[in-house]
């Protein structure tokens, strides 16, 4: 398994709260991603980064924001959580040209907004 870590794994928070989901990888990968996945459903890309100070929005519109100040760290922030944000958030990383462009995933963060 790949060395990519997400915290918290499970979180229940109230509406309007600010939350940051942490993601770190120790593989030196240049590219990092955030996917959103409802239970048993397909994954949707919400943010990605090609390197430090690079962030882009993915295919699925999201009210979350991300930052990439360090290569190994790619946190996702929700300024004001709503019940519609309840989902699983998967962080992933890959390295340009390495391992057949394989993307490795973290264990996921399950967010419930009540």
């Amino acid at each position, binding site marked *: 398994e790949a060395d990519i870590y997400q915290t918290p794994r499970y979180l229940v928070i109230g509406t309007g709260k600010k939350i940051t989901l942490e993601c770190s990888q120790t593989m030196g990968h240049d590219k990092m991603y955030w996917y959103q996945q409802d239970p048993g459903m*397909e994954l949707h890309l919400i943010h990605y980064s090609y390197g430090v100070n690079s962030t882009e929005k993915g295919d699925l519109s999201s009210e979350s924001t991300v930052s990439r100040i360090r290569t190994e760290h790619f946190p996702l922030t929700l300024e004001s959580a709503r019940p519609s944000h309840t989902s699983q958030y998967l962080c992933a990383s890959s390295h340009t040209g390495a391992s*057949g462009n394989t*993307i490795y995933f973290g264990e996921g963060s399950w967010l419930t907004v009540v």
Partner: protein
Amino acid sequence: AQTVTQSQPEMSVQEAETVTLSCTYDTSESDYYLFWYKQPPSRQMILVIRQEAYKQQNATENRFSVNFQKAAKSFSLKISDSQLGDAAMYFCAFTSNNAGNMLTFGGGTRLMVKP
């Protein structure tokens, strides 16, 4: 734009038997990569097998093998000697250098293994 289609929302297999999960994709690119990922309930998404489009030989990883038909744009996964631990969601995925290494996923197939 690329699309990936998994036409089987659910499949079941008897323990020790063989099952094949289907995946088709659409792309205009010639150089790309295909993957099968496994996601057990509430657990990490892990890579099962990878296929480079330029390779004619089908990839194999222990009990897992693929049938890659490039002309037909088909990429099925065969699981031999199925085990209870194989029960999971399986996602077919596509990426290419032109896509910036971002994965396009299929909708997933839930595999149930009967003892």
